């Protein structure tokens, strides 16, 4: 079943248009990775889905209803949770409070403090610390945990690996299957193509605000991905990035 159906989506900031006629489908339960170079519009796309950037044209049909005009603070109640770029924990709240505030919308489901801590056991001893003293990896775990607390049907992960050591990134990605098993559909944005191809069931590549490639990792040739990533003629990208 299609959980999310985006058609002809335009969006941007002020005079700058970041997305041009994006069409993307996400099936319930799949893990879709969105890849692309810096400035390709990946983060903007996630922020549009979460309601932080307004939709200029097109439709966003989530679970059968067009949510393009729904305000940001109502979308989490519908089951869309964004883990924003840069983690964005609430610095004057403790880790525990950060997790609890994730449940503010009050959606019922399997995720609560205990089940989230089962996925991220490392944050259990940190619960009563202020969130701003945590390491980057710990903060990212809390940010993902905070999103899970809302019992989302779809989790949007923005650049989980940004600024983190490879070993930390690896442990964070090991938590992804737990999200999917919990019934959540995952849409993740990643600059590290290798990482994205490893975890995703399907990949969408953005290039300068447009979809340049789409497919299953196994079916895509590395050279096609490189071409779509950098905007080279098909077949020209013999050396893969990342």
């Amino acid at each position: 079943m299609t959980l999310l159906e985006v058609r002809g989506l335009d969006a941007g900031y002020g005079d700058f248009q970041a997305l041009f006629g994006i069409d993307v489908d996400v099936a319930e339960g799949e893990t879709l990775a969105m890849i692309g170079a810096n400035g390709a519009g990946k983060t903007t796309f996630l922020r549009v889905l979460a309601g932080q950037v307004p939709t200029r044209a097109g439709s966003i049909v989530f679970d059968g209803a067009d949510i393009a005009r729904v305000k940001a603070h109502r979308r989490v109640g519908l089951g869309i949770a964004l883990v924003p770029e840069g983690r964005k924990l609430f610095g004057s709240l403790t880790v525990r409070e950060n997790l609890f505030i994730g449940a503010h919308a009050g959606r019922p489901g399997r995720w609560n403090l205990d089940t989230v801590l089962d996925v991220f056991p490392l944050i259990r001893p940190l619960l009563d610390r202020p969130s701003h003293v945590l390491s980057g990896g710990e903060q990212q775990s809390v940010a993902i945990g905070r999103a899970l607390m809302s019992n989302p049907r779809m989790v949007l992960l923005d650049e989980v690996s940004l600024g983190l050591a490879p070993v930390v990134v690896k442990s964070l990605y090991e938590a992804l299957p737990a999200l999917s098993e919990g019934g959540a559909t995952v849409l993740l944005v990643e600059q590290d193509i290798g990482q994205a191809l490893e975890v995703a069931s399907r990949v969408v590549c953005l290039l300068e605000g447009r979809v340049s490639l789409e497919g299953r990792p196994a079916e895509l040739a590395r050279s096609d991905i490189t071409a779509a990533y950098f905007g080279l003629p098909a077949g020209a990208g013999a050396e893969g990035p990342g």
Partner: protein
Amino acid sequence: MEWLNAIVQGILLGGLFALFATGLSLAFGVMRFVNLAHGDLAILGAFVAVSVTTALGLNPFVSLVVVVPVMLAAGYALQLGAFNFTISPDPLPSILVTFGLGVVIQNALLQTYSADSRGLDVGSIEIESIKITDAIAVGWIPLITLVVAVAVLGALQLMLSRTALGRAFRAVSDDPATARLMGINDRNLYAVAMGIAFATVAIAGVFLGIRQSFGPLDGPAQLLYAFEAVVIGGLGSVWGTLVGGLLLGVAHTVGGQFEVSFGYGSGPLLGHIVFLVVLATKPSGLLGRRAE
């Protein structure tokens, strides 16, 4: 003994200052909102109490049962209907709008109640006091004011630190855009905060009216003291607001000891000096969080 008395009376006066400063501190803490009409709102609260006491024949203390909900509703509505449109990283729109609101309130009060000074009469308790030593006596009204100030600030602190609403307030204060991602309607939360701010300043206004006479144009002076208390204690810090109020109160009464040599302004003058010294040496306030 004279000095000890001045300090005791200053702490009692500080309770009133802290009560004035509470709403200002809350609005700034939650939404970086500077309300220049805050003093006028206190006076408005006192005048509403005048109307309620005359119309219903209530004791001014009892009139709070009507005044506080009325002002709370007014704050909520005003934030939703007007102030929310001024919320931006730029503080100027909120300053302009609330400055204008202050002028409107002053003139509306002049029009409705005339320029006469008023007072709120609570009977003989006004002049009764508890004698502690021969030189020190604590008046009931100032004592009740201080107790109410501590209770209001304590309740506010408990709400902010222990409840889901308080957690949402702190989250919105940190980062409203991310708070929206959590499902928090920040605009509505701002309205709740302004409702609480109006309710507390109305209490302050009523206690001012019980303590001394007041007129429609007395708001700006109260605003000044409230601002000084907030800055001394630390912007957005609840206990800082109490400390700032008490310190300012003590400065006023201790400064008042110099009236003989410096004239009548010596109390407020020392208050301003304390304010300036704190602002110059510790701009984030005595209990303020790190400067942002």
